[in-house]
C-alpha cells in the first residue's frame, strides 16, 4: 500500500515538470498555431542557464532559487527574441513549414549549446533545504519531488489567474478560441504572439531549471523532452491548459506504474497512451475540431499537370544519364547515388500523401522501417532470397499503414500528424527494446544483396530500376482518377463528400499506397547498408523525409526528387567541411523556409514564370 502511494507521488512529481514544459508548448500553439519543435531546446537552455547561474551566484540558500528564476527569465527573453527574429517571418507560410523552421532552430541550438557549455554533462547543486527526504507512510520520499508537485500546482493556479483575470490572459484565451479575432487584432497581434512566446519559453526554461537538482544537464535533454511534451499536449488537446495538466498526470503516473509491470517496454508505453487516447478522442481530451482550423489547402495548392510528351522525353535523357553513371563515378559515387535514389523514392512516397493527399504525415519512418525490418526478419529467420524478402517489404508496410492508418484518418491536421508520429515511435520502441527478435539497438546484421546484385554497379542498377519504376507509378497515380479524388478531398473536403467521395477511404488508401512505396524504399535501404537498425524507424528518419519533401517543394512532382538529392548531398558535404554542420544546416533550412516557402523547385518555377512574364 505504502509502495503504491509512493509510486503515485513519484509519478506526480515527474508530471510536475512535464506540465510546466507542456503547458508552455500548448499556450504557444493555442495562440500562434505554431507547433514549436524548439520548445525542447528552450527547456535544455533553461537547464544550462540555471547551471551557469548557480556557478556564478553559488548554489546556496536564496541564490539557488534566484539562479533558477533568472535562468527561466533569460529563457523567456531568448524565446521572445526567437519569435521576433525568426518566427515572425514564417507566420504566413504553411504550418508544416513552420514546424520545419522550428526544427532548424533545434539544430542551431544544439551546436550553440555544445560550443557554449562543452560536451560533458554538468551536474548542478542540490536544492538547499530540499536535498533530503521525508518519511511518508514509513517510506522515505525525496522532499524536492514533493516540492515540485506543490510548485506545479502553484504554477497551474497562477496560469489560471493570468488567463482569467488579466487583459493579456483574456486576449490569449480569445485568440485560442477564435482564430478570426486574432487576425483583427492588428499590431496588438504581434505583441500578443511575442508575449505568449516569451511566457511559453519561460515555462520551458523553468522546467529545465527545476531539473537541476534531479539530473545532470546534458546535450540530449532537448529531444527527449520535446517528444514527451508533444505527447502530453496532444493527449490533453492542443491549446488546452486543463488538458496539459491532466495529460501530464496521466503520463507521469502511468509511466511510474508501467515500470513496475513492463520494465522492458517503458518506451512503448508513452506512445501507447497517446494512441489509445487519440483513438477514442481524436482531438485529445479537451481539444475540439474547432481548434483545428487547419487550412489544408495551404499545404499545397498548386495545380499539377501530367507530364507532357516533351517532358517524358527529358525524363528519358535523364534516365540515360543515370544509366551511364557507373561509367563516370567511383564506387562511393555509386553508393551515394544508390542512397539518394532510395531516399528519393522515400520522399516521393511522402510527397504523394502530403502533397496531393494533403495529409501532414509526421511518422513516415514507420513505413520505411517496417519495410526494412520485414526484409531483415525474413532474411534472418526464414533465410529467403533477396527478391522474396523485398516483396515482403511493401506488404508489411501496407499492412502497417492500413492498420495504423485506420485510426489516423479519423483525425485531422496536427492530431493526425501526431498520431502517425505516435505509431512510428511505438514501433520504433518495439524494435529498440524487443532485444531477442529485432536485435535491439544493434539491429540485424549481415543482410547483403544476392550474389548477382552484390557488385556496387549491379546494386545501383537494381535500385535504379525498382525505384525508378516505383516513382513512375507514384507519379502516374497522381493523375489517375484515384489521385484526382484524393486531391479533391484535400482541396475541398465538404464538396468532395457532397459529390459522393468517401474521404476517409480515399485517405486510408493513400496512406496504404504511400506506405507501400516507403516500405520498398526501406527494404532497399537494408541491402544498401547490409543491416537494419532501429534508426530506420526513429524521428530522425521521419524528419529527413519531411525536410527532403518540403525543401524540394510540395507543389511540384520533381520536388521530392530534387529535395532528396540536395538534402542528402548537403548533409554529407557540410559535415565533411565542419563540425558545426548542424548549425549550418539549420541556417540553410531556415533560409529556405523564409525565402523560398515554395521549396526549391517551387521557387525556381515561380522565378521562371516571372521571367517569362517580363520577357513577354
Amino acid at each position, binding site marked *: 500500500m505504502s509502495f503504491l502511494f509512493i509510486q503515485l507521488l513519484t509519478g506526480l512529481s515527474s508530471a510536475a515538470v512535464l506540465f510546466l514544459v507542456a503547458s508552455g508548448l500548448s499556450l504557444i500553439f493555442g495562440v500562434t498555431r505554431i507547433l514549436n519543435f524548439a520548445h525542447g531546446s528552450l527547456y535544455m537552455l533553461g537547464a544550462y542557464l540555471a547551471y551557469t547561474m548557480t556557478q556564478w551566484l553559488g548554489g546556496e540558500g536564496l541564490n539557488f532559487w534566484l539562479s533558477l528564476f533568472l535562468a527561466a527569465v533569460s529563457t523567456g527573453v531568448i524565446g521572445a527574441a526567437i519569435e521576433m527574429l525568426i518566427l515572425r517571418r514564417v507566420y504566413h507560410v504553411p504550418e508544416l513549414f513552420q514546424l520545419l523552421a522550428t526544427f532548424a532552430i533545434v539544430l542551431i541550438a544544439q551546436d550553440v549549446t555544445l560550443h557554449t557549455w562543452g560536451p560533458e554533462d554538468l551536474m548542478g547543486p542540490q536544492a538547499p533545504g530540499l536535498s533530503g527526504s521525508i518519511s511518508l507512510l514509513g517510506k522515505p520520499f525525496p522532499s524536492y519531488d514533493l516540492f515540485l508537485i506543490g510548485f506545479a500546482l502553484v504554477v497551474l493556479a497562477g496560469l489560471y489567474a493570468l488567463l482569467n483575470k488579466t487583459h493579456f490572459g483574456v486576449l490569449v484565451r480569445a485568440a485560442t478560441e477564435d482564430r478570426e479575432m486574432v487576425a483583427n487584432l492588428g499590431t496588438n497581434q504581434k505583441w500578443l504572439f511575442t508575449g505568449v512566446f516569451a511566457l511559453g519559453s519561460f515555462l520551458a526554461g523553468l522546467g529545465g531549471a527545476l531539473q537541476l537538482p534531479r539530473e545532470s544537464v546534458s546535450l540530449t535533454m532537448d529531444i527527449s523532452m520535446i517528444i514527451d511534451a508533444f505527447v502530453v499536449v496532444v493527449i490533453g488537446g492542443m491549446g488546452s491548459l486543463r488538458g496539459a495538466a491532466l495529460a501530464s498526470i496521466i503520463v507521469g503516473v502511468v509511466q511510474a506504474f508501467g515500470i513496475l509491470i513492463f520494465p522492458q517496454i517503458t518506451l512503448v508505453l508513452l506512445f501507447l497512451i497517446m494512441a489509445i487516447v487519440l483513438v477514442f478522442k481524436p482531438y485529445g481530451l479537451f481539444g475540439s475540431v474547432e481548434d483545428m482550423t487547419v487550412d489544408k489547402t495551404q499545404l*499545397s*495548392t498548386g495545380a499539377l499537370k501530367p507530364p507532357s510528351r516533351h517532358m517524358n522525353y527529358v525524363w528519358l535523357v535523364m534516365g540515360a544519364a543515370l544509366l551511364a553513371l557507373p561509367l563516370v563515378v567511383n564506387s562511393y559515387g555509386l553508393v551515394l547515388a544508390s542512397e539518394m535514389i532510395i531516399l528519393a523514392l522515400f520522399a516521393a512516397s511522402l510527397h504523394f500523401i502530403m502533397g496531393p493527399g494533403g495529409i501532414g504525415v509526421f511518422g513516415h519512418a514507420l513505413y520505411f522501417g517496417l519495410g526494412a525490418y520485414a526484409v531483415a526478419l525474413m532474411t534472418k529467420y526464414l533465410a529467403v532470397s533477396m527478391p522474396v524478402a523485398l516483396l515482403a517489404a511493401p506488404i508489411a508496410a501496407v499492412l502497417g499503414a492500413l492498420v495504423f492508418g485506420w485510426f489516423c484518418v479519423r483525425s485531422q491536421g496536427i492530431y493526425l500528424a501526431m498520431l502517425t508520429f505516435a505509431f512510428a515511435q511505438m514501433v520504433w520502441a518495439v524494435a529498440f527494446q524487443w532485444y531477442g527478435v529485432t536485435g535491439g539497438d544493434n539491429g540485424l546484421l549481415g543482410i547483403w544483396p544476392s550474389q548477382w546484385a552484390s557488385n556496387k554497379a549491379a546494386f545501383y542498377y537494381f535500385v535504379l530500376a525498382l525505384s525508378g519504376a516505383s516513382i513512375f507509378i507514384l507519379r502516374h497515380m497522381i493523375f489517375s482518377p*484515384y489521385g*484526382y479524388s484524393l486531391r479533391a478531398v484535400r*482541396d*475541398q473536403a*465538404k*464538396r468532395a463528400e457532397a*459529390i459522393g467521395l468517401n474521404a476517409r477511404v480515399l485517405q486510408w488508401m493513400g496512406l496504404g499506397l504511400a506506405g507501400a512505396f516507403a516500405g520498398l524504399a526501406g527494404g532497399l535501404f537494408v541491402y544498401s547498408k547490409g543491416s537494419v537498425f532501429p534508426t530506420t524507424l526513429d524521428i530522425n528518419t521521419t524528419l529527413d523525409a519531411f525536410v527532403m519533401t518540403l525543401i524540394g517543394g510540395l507543389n511540384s512532382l520533381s520536388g521530392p526528387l530534387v529535395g532528396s538529392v540536395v538534402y542528402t548531398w548537403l548533409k554529407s558535404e557540410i559535415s565533411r567541411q565542419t563540425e558545426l554542420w548542424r548549425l549550418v544546416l539549420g541556417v540553410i533550412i531556415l533560409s529556405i523556409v523564409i525565402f523560398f516557402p515554395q521549396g526549391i523547385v517551387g521557387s525556381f518555377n515561380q522565378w521562371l514564370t516571372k521571367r517569362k512574364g517580363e520577357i513577354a
Partner: protein
Amino acid sequence: MSDAFSPPLLSVSGLRKSFGGVQAVGGVAFDVRLGQIVALIGANGAGKTTTFNCINGQMPPDGGKVIYNPAALTTEERIRLEREGELSKTDTPLPRDITGRSPRRIARLGIGRTFQITATFASMTVIENVQMVLIAQRKLWKRLWGFAGKLFRDEAMALLETVGLSAQAERHTATLAYGDLKRLELAMALANGPKLLLMDEPTAGMGVEERDSLMRLVHKVAKNQNIGILFTEHDMDAVFNYADWIIVLHRGQIIARGNAETIKAHPQVREVYLGKENP
C-alpha cells in the same frame, strides 16, 4: 408540372439544430416535389444554410426528420440505387428516412448541393472540377490507372456549355470571377445528376443581368429535367420571379409560406424582412 398531389421527393419535419445554446433552426417543416422550385428566404443568420447542412448530411440535426421518397423516382433510378446498395429492395416504394446519413450517401441518392461560400477544387481547372464530379458519380474514384483528365471530357464540356462556362474550361478556378465560380458550382451539382438540388445563394455577387440569366437557366433545368430545387437567396426579384413556392425563415422558425403573392402580402414578413430591405 409541379403536381401538388404527387408524393413529395423530400419531406422535412420538425428539424432542429442548436449551436451551444443558440438555436439556429427550431422545428422547420416543408416539402419539395420533383420539378418544383422552392425558395428558402430569411435575413442573415436566419438558419438557411444550417437547414441545408442538416438535409445533405453535413451536420446531424438535433431533432426532426428528413425523409426522401424514392417512390417519386423512376423505376430505372430506383433499380440503380438498389444495385448500389443505397436502397434495400424492401423499402423501395416506401419513403426513406435519411436523417443524419453521411453527405456522401445522401449525394448518391441524388441530392446535390452548391455552397454559399464557393467550394470548388482549387488545384484543378474548371473542366477538371466537373470531370471530378463525373468520376465520383460513376464510382471510378478508386481506379489507380489511366488519366483522369481524359475521362468524360465531352460530357463535362457539355455541362459547362449549359452554364455558359465553356470558354473558361481550361482556366484555374482560382482565377475565376465570383459569378463564374457560382456557375461552376451549378455545373458541378448538375454533373451529379441530382433529383433534388440544394442551392445556397446561387447568385450572390452577380450583377442583375447575370443573375437573371442564371435563374432562367435554373428554371429551365428544373422544368426540363424534372428536378426539385430548394434555394436560398437574398435578392427578392430572383425569388419572386422564379420560385414556385417560398418559405420564410426568421430566427430558425418558418413564419410564412406560399407563392409570391402570398409572401409579398404577408404582414409579418413585411415587418421583419421585406421592411428592412425595401423601406
